Every structure is written in C-alpha cells, then in structure tokens.
C-alpha cells in the first residue's frame, strides 16, 4: 500500500504513456491482418501480404509522394521565411514590433478550420485553381509561426557576446553571420524545420479545404475511412513510426558517443 502511494505518480505516468502508444501498437498489429470485407477494423488472420506489396492499392503511393513533396517544399519555404523573421525579432528593435508578434502568434491560436475556411474564401474570390500550389501556400502559412517560435528561442538564448567576439576578431558582418551566428542557431533552425515537416506532412483540415481534387496522404486516409481501409495504410503508418524512432535513436547514440569520445 505504501509502495503504491509512493509510486502513484509513476504508475499514472506509465498508464498515460500506454494510452499514447496503444494506437501505434494496434496499427502495427493490424498491418499483418487479412481483413474480410473492405474495412480493416477487426482481426481476422495473420498475413504479410500488405508488407510485401505496400503500393498495391491504387493512388496510395502517389498520394504519399505528393505529401512528401509538399512537406519538403513547405519546410524549405517556412524555414527560410521563419528564420528571417526570427532574427529580426530577436536581434533588432523596430517599429510595429507588437503588431508583428501578434501576426505570428495568431495563426497558432486559431482553430485550423477557421484558417482553412478563410483561405478558401480568398482563393475562391481570386479564382485560383485549387491544387498543389494552393496547398503549398497554405502549409507555408501555418508552419511559419512554429518555425519563428523555435528559431527565436534559440537566437535569444545565444550569447550576443559571441557575435561581438567575432567582430572583435576581424570578422566582417557577413563573416560573423556565416561563421558564428548561423552555426550556433542551427539546432533551433533544424528543430523548426522538423516541426514544419511533421505539421505539413500530417495536415488534414487545411489541406482538405484547399486541395480541390488533389489527394494528399492524409486525404487518402480520410477518404478510405469512408470507402474502405486497405491494410497498406497500416504498413505505411508503421514504417513511418519506425523510421522516425530509428532516426531519433541513431541521433541520440551518435550524440552520446561524441560526448564520450570527447571526454
């Protein structure tokens, strides 16, 4: 009983963690299912068919590659624009600072459906052709604020004396930026870019409004929830999860080894 009381927090935390991971485990298990009928919601029998042929359903891999392209381009766009804003906010004083900060904050404090609907209104009014470009524009827009926040935090935590030291050691403003500021701000920029990639790749609501007849991977999954869920969706979901975890673990291992070697 006493043990229980002392470890109450740990038990509750582990249960929450289980709640968080449970769906991923279900996705993994059901990637080996051979469902009867069109929906993959009930367990039937073990099979590796879907793993052997992940692109075996029409349009699935096409939507995946489209999502990847959009995610890459919007990551690049949002990271470049966001980093510039972050530097302006962190390093300079200027007029309308408050207005700029609000403009950055608002997209993060707005339900997606509101942004999605208003952006669609704009595109309809301008007579724009919905598709790849409208999705890209929308993704850069809502990823921008997150990049700004991530990079700004890093730049603000950077000792401004480092830049002074560079100038003091004969580095011109451009050299100072390239040799000192940028390398030190890099982890923040990388974090912002990673976040932008994840947000863009996984976005459904804003894409759904502004995609026209173009189908991204989340839209494919959404559609399949109505038409019938192929097992291949679980395969791709599991593979994405595995790749992400392996990347992070590898990054950590390399970091650890480097730290140990250095000591």
């Amino acid at each position, binding site marked *: 009983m006493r043990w229980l009381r002392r470890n109450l927090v740990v038990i509750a935390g582990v249960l929450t963690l289980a709640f968080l991971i449970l*769906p991923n485990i279900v*996705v993994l298990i059901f990637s080996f299912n051979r469902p009867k009928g069109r929906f993959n919601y009930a367990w039937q029998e073990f099979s590796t068919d879907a793993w052997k042929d992940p692109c075996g359903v029409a349009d699935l891999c096409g939507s995946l590659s489209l999502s990847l392209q959009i995610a890459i381009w919007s990551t690049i766009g949002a990271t470049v624009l966001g980093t510039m804003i972050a530097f*302006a906010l962190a390093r300079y004083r200027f007029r309308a600072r408050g207005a700029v900060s609000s403009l950055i904050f608002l997209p993060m404090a707005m339900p997606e*459906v509101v942004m999605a*609907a208003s952006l669609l*209104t704009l595109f309809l009014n301008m007579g724009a052709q919905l598709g790849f470009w409208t999705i890209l524009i929308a993704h850069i827009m809502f990823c921008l604020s997150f990049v700004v926040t991530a990079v700004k935090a890093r730049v603000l935590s950077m000792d401004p004396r480092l830049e002074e030291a560079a100038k003091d050691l004969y580095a011109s403003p451009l050299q100072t930026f390239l040799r000192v500021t940028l390398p030190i701000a890099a982890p923040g920029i990388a974090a912002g870019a990673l976040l932008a990639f994840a947000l863009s790749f996984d976005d459904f609501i804003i894409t759904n*409004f502004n995609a026209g007849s173009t189908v991204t991977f989340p839209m494919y*999954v959404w559609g399949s929830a109505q038409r019938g869920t192929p097992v291949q969706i679980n395969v791709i*979901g599991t593979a994405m999860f595995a790749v992400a975890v392996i990347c992070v673990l590898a990054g950590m291992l390399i970091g650890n080894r480097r730290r140990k070697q250095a000591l």
Partner: protein
Amino acid sequence: MTTVTEAPPEPPAEAGKPAARRRPRGRFVPYWLLLPGILWLVVFFALPMLYQASTSVQTGSLTEGYEVTWHFATYWDAIGEYWPQFLRSVQYAGTATVLCLLLGYPLAYLIAFKAGRWRSLVLILVIAPFFTSFLIRTLAWKTILADGGPVVGALNTLHVLDVTSWLGMTEGDRVLATPLAVVCGLTYNFLPFMVLPLYTSLERIDPRLHEAAGDLYARPFTTFRKVTFRLSMPGVVSGTLLTFIPASGDYINSQLLGSTNEKMIGNVIQSQFLTVLDYPTAAALSFILMAAILLIVTFYIRRSGTEDLV
C-alpha cells in the same frame, strides 16, 4: 522610421536604456528580414480573414453570385440554428482539455523528475506518435473501442459504462459513436500538446526547491500544491490553450468516432463550406468560432497572469 537601431547586444551593465542614436547603415535590415514572411502572413492569413468577414455579410446564391448587403441576420440565424453544436464543441473540447491535464501532468512529472536515464526514451515515445499520420492513429481507436471488444468488455465489467451512461456520455453497451468516443479521441490526439509544455516548465524547476519546501515542514502534497504546481503554471496555461483551441475546432474525431449526434461546430463549418456551399453561413460560423476562441483565450490569459506565451 527613426527609431531603428540594432538592439544593443547584451547591454553592458550600465546601459540601462536602449541606444537612441541612428545608425545610417543597416537601418532597414530588420524590415528586409521581415518583409517576405510578414507579407506571406498578411496575404494568406490576415487578408483571408477580411474576405471571410465580408463573405459573412453577403447575400445571394451560388449561381447568381454574392453581394455585400450587410446582412447581419446571417449571424443570428447561424447562432439560432447551430448553438447546440457550438455548445457541444466547448463541452467536448473542455472535457478533453481537463482529461489531458489530469493524464498529462503525471506523465510530464514522471519525465521531469522520475525518469532518470529513461528520460530521453520516454520523451521520444511521447513525440513519436506524431510521425504516424494522426488519421491512421485515430482510425485505430475504432478497433480499440469496437463493440464487444476487450476494452468495452472491461469497462462494462468494471461498471464504468454505468457511470458514463448516467453522465450521458455513452448509451447501453457501446462506446463507439458516443460522446465518450469523441472525447477520448480528442484527448488522445492533443495529449502531447499538453505533456510537452508541462514538461518544459517542470524541467526548469530546481529540484532543490522540493527539498527546501520539505525542510520548511511542507508535506509532499503541500509541496506539490504550493511549490511545484505554482511554478508549472506557465506550462499548464500554454498546455491547456494548445489543447483547447485545436480541439474546439476539430471535426475529425467526431466524424470518425462519433455519430450524427456528436457533430461539433467544425463539422458544420466543413459541410457548409464544402458540401452545402452556403458560404455566408459558413463564414459567419467560422467568424463566431474565431471570436469566441479569442475571447476565451484573452480572458484565460488575463486570469492566469501569464502573458508571455510566444
């Protein structure tokens, strides 16, 4: 444009006030840095809001075109017709936010103070689900909560379903296609947005403060209430906002896990915009949602006294 100067880099101790001297070169640097990104946000975020505002007071039809007639009645009609969905959105999002806080706090606390060398691993497990499409994960809940499945069976045996159906959250032996399923989905989807800010603010707390509180005769629970929880308030505030705001506009969970009785305001806006094509009503609804959220957020931030969220 007279006050543009480089922010004095870490003003020396004696530099109490910002330099007001002009610097001819580099005066426009911040504006050049801001220009493209801010232009993007103005054109694709702020301007659409204006378009939407104007659409909401237009009348007409899809075939004959729309015209601004300052028809504010659209707003009254929209509220009159869809107030149950508004109310439901606030209820579901509110419940999910409270559940996220209750579930997320122990986990964040665990990572910050108890995980030791497992800390990075647990953190990865919290973030990793992000990398599997959330739609796929939400669909997995259909399997987990399936009628007659082990989870529903267990909840039934433990008489949990009796309690939830007394609360009006479930009906009979089902969980899927009930409010409980939608709230569960919302809680699940936005839980990481609660855990991460909580963890960040808990991690900043000096563990010695716990010892100090203990040293000053505070029992463990008092220590938590008076010290830890107070200091984690910034995390609590930003976590609840990051959960409540997207949850209140969400329509995916109610679509995938609920029935027609669990439609939230997001579903209405989506169908008005994409299926019914009644743009003025859709615009009015989304404007009301936006205004409501901004009001709630402003009030909440004022009350909790944490204004530096960005």
